[in-house]
Structure formats: C-alpha cells, structure tokens
C-alpha cells in the first residue's frame, strides 16, 4: 500500500491556484519536500493533514481518504509545525501528555508515553519546566515529542531543524534518520535545506508554482542524469570532438580548452569514448561521470 497517493489534486484559493494537477504515489519511508516560498508546500501539507479539502482530485494518506476523514487522519499522523505551537503555562511533560490525549490516548497512557518520548529526545531533565522557558533547540524537540507521542505511522515535519545550532541539527537529523530506518516510521520533511533532505530522505517531491516537477527516489532522479560525463584530455581535440558529435553526443566546452561536458545518447557505452580516442590518435586523460547533488537535481527539474 502506498503511503501517500494523490491523483490529479488541485486547489484554488478564490482565483489563485495553489496546487494544480498533483499526482504522486509515495512509498513508506523518509520523503523530502522542496519548493520555493509560495510553491504550494503548505497547501499540500494542509491537504495531507485533512485540514483542507482539495478543489479537485482524489487521494489517500495511509489508506484514508483525504476527503472527509480529517480528525481520523490526524490521529495517524504527527505534525510538527515550523511556527511555535505551545500552550503557555504547561510543563513540558503536561504539554506532551495533552497532545497524546488530544490524539485519543487515555490520560494514564498519555502521561506514561510523554515521559518515555521526552526521555528518548533527551528532555527528561527539563520535563517539569514550563514550555515557555525552553531554549529554541529544546522547543524543537518538544514539538517533535508532541508530534510523536501517539506513535503515528507518518510524521509531517515542517522545517524541523530551523533555529538549531550545528550540534542540535546533527542530533535532530540523526534522530529522524533513525526513526525512518530503525523504527519503521514514515516521515515527510518540508524544508529549504536540501542537505537535510539529502541526509535523511530516500524520496523527494519537488514542488514549483503549484505543480509537482519531480517525484520519486532521489537515486532515481539522479539516475536520470547519468548520461553526462566530464572529459579531460591533452592536446588538440578538434577531431575527437567532431567524432563525438557525429556519434550523437552533445558536447559543451566550458571555458577550459582541455575539458568538456558530454551528454551521451541512451545506450552509449563508456568504453566508446576510448575507442574513439584511439581511432583519432588522441589522449583522453579522464572520463568522469557527472554526480548530481540534490540542489542540481532541484534546479534541473525546476528549469524543465
């Protein structure tokens, strides 16, 4: 069963189109969501939380219809918002227990579970302090504790590392990775920090101006780019480059006279570079497959 299944989902705020024709099928695991401000990420999160009924389209989260199963849906999903979400005057443990009760847990279970979760997140010593006295990093952990107290199958995390120092960020990312890999939780991470997604997530959704520009496993999206090589040589390369072009390779020379980027057609074997070089009596010094980082994938998909 897919974790998230959306089919042709669109949403309009009056005349403004926030989402258009979103069709995705995401498998359980850690999923990153990238997009500029106003791209439609928040609207998508609202739809996934069952807070907004899409203007058009159908879908399901954890097998539950996104239309009309709002509260039930939120019972299986934990949401960690980017903005502060505290009830002033409550101690940390009471806040997390209250979150559990609001998710349908009996009081005793909620309280016991709140102690456990705060302990997992390293807040056991601060659990009896009032939530407004927590530092920024501790508030992030407290929000995460409140999101995972009822042991949801899916965690929706909005900028979970915002405001954290490098150590705190590292701990948070390790925790999220551990939740996904060792404890079988599914995560959807909405963030502007591509490094966070690269480190934690195996799937990604790229949203731009209300449309999904790319979706799937990060490794697969990178694979789409695997037909690019950086070639370096010594000597004159005119004949060699002509041979490449006549073989259907798109060659881009970027400033340096001894280097180019070659985009090869489907089914092009790497050894063919060396065969052509031998034929043209040419010294090819380096054939380097182009490794794309997530940022490059993002920009490439946005541009297309």
């Amino acid at each position, binding site marked *: 069963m897919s974790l998230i299944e959306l089919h042709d989902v669109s949403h309009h705020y009056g005349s403004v189109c926030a989402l258009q024709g979103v069709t995705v099928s995401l498998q359980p695991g850690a999923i990153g969501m990238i997009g500029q401000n106003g791209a439609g990420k928040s609207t998508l999160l609202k739809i996934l*939380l069952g807070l907004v009924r899409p203007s058009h389209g159908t879908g399901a989260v954890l097998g539950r219809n996104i239309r009309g199963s709002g509260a039930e849906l939120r019972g299986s999903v934990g949401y960690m918002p980017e903005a502060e979400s505290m*009830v002033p005057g409550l101690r940390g443990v009471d806040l997390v227990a209250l979150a559990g009760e609001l998710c349908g847990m009996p009081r005793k279970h909620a309280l016991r579970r709140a102690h456990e979760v705060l302990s997992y997140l*390293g807040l056991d010593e*601060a659990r009896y302090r009032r939530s407004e006295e927590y530092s920024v990093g501790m508030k992030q952990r407290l929000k995460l504790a409140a999101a995972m107290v009822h042991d949801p199958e899916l965690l929706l995390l909005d900028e979970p590392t915002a405001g954290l120092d490098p150590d705190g960020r590292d701990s948070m990312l390790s925790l999220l990775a551990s939740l996904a890999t060792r404890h079988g939780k599914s995560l959807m991470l909405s963030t502007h920090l591509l490094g966070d997604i690269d480190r934690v997530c195996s799937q990604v959704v790229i949203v731009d101006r209300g449309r999904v520009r790319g979706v799937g496993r990060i490794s697969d999206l990178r694979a789409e780019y695997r037909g690019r090589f950086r070639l370096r040589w010594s000597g004159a390369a005119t004949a060699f480059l002509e041979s490449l072009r006549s073989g259907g390779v798109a060659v881009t020379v970027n400033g340096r006279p001894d280097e180019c980027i070659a985009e090869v057609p489907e089914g092009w074997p790497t050894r063919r570079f060396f065969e052509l070089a031998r034929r043209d009596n040419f010294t090819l010094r380096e054939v380097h497959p182009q490794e794309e980082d997530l940022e490059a994938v993002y920009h490439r998909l946005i541009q297309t």
Partner: protein
Amino acid sequence: MPIELTGYRGWEGKPRGSWRSVWAIVRSGVLMILRRWVFWLLIGLGLLNFIFNFAFIYLKATLTVQNEGMAQFLDNYQVTGTGEAYANFMQAQASITALLLAFAGASLIGADYRQGGMVFYLSRRIERRHYIVGKLLTVATIVTMITTLPALLLFAQYGVLSKSLDYFIDNPRIIAGIVGYGAVLAIVQSLLLFAVAAWVHRAVPLVMCWLGIFVLLEALGSAAREINDNRTWLLLGIWRDMHRLGEWCFGAREASRPPTSAQCAAVLAGVCVVCLIVIVRRVRAVEIVR
C-alpha cells in the same frame, strides 16, 4: 542531552473518541489558571465572600439554638437562606469572576493565537468544534467553580443546619435559581470572553474591552435612558440583564416595565449568537499550517 532512541517502544492502544479530548482541554485550561498565583488573588476574594456567608449561616444556626430572638432579628436582613440572598451572593461572585476572566482570557484563549496554541490543538485528532466546546467549557467551569458551586454549598449548609431538612423540600426554586443563574453567567461570560479574546489577544486591550462591555455599555444605557426617557435602553447593560434573568430564575416577581426578563433573555440570546458566529469565524483550522 543526547537523543537516544534505543529501546523505543510504540503505543498500541485504541484511540478514544474525539469528544473525550474535550475534557483534556478543560482540565489543562483550569489547571493553568489555578497554577498562577496572580489569579489566586481574585479567587481568594471570591473565597472570602464565601467564607463570610458560610460563617454567617453557621452563626445564625448557633444563635437559633441559643437565642431565637437574635436569629429572628438576623432573618430580617435576609442575608442567607432566601432566593434573593443567593442571587445577591452569586452576583457578587460573578463580579469577581468577570474580573478574573478579564485577566485570564489572554492566557486561556488569546495565547492560542499569539503563541501557537491553536496550531497545537487543531493539528491533533480533533475538529474545530471540539476545540471551541473545550475552550467554552473551560471558561464555564471557572465561572461555575466561583459562582454556582459555592452557592450550592451554602444552600446545602443552610439546609443541613436548619431545624429540619424540610428546607430542601420547601425551596426547590432556590436550587433551580442557583443552577439557572449559574448557567446564564457561565454561558454568556464564556461566549463573550472567547469572542473578545479571539479578536483582542493581549491582556491589557482585553481588560479594556471587557470593562467596555460590562461598564461602559451599562453607563451608556443609563445615559440613553435619561436622555430619551425610555427604559428599554437599560437593556444595553449586559451585566444588569444577566442579573435580571438570574433573579427570574430564583422566582422574583416580574417587572411591569422594561426591561423585562423576556427582553433581557432576548438581548442575551442575541449577544450569544453574535459571539458564536465570531468564534466560528475566528477559529480556522487551516491556519495551523503557515
């Protein structure tokens, strides 16, 4: 403070219905008020009034045994035991409650808008209606704790310390009055507070609005009545309307000229409906994702 998920255990219980969560909202709200010493100053004032009445009933019961003449003398003042006395007691308690709510409203409801409490509540397994009912019940519980509950205790004390338990049988209207007046106070004040705090989130503006509703409107009503020589203007005083309706609950004789109990009830019902519309419009679940 290391993060350590070793030994992580899930929760495998069956979630309860969303309406059960309303109780959690009420409990946390009431506890939040009771944990702040500032609010205890006002709660203490209410307790003082209660203790005064409690002591007076005890004194009267003692004097009835020792000196019946003195007890009859005290009866002339109708400080305890009658519907009017309970109505006056509840009005005094309600004044303290109104003052308490003026300050507590910013923490109970305003903070949900300022500090993300709304996000906290509405991203859980509840709908808007559960949140609204929870918050209204929180305020209503505070009002009941300070007005209705002490009045019922005093009624019980008076009955128990009477010569016979016939007091309970002879005065069912007093119980109805206490419960009815308490309900009027709880419903009107909770709806008004929620509606005002949903617009004005901070304590000082909230106190000013609250005073405006209960004091300024009353003064305006009195002034308009003087100018136009029309007593209907008195209906503007919501505080007076609540007390008039409360007295009706205790079985007070109906006034022949405005404002009548029916008019007061109509005004209060109108205020409640407007407040409810404001509340529903101001609590928007979609705001939880920004």
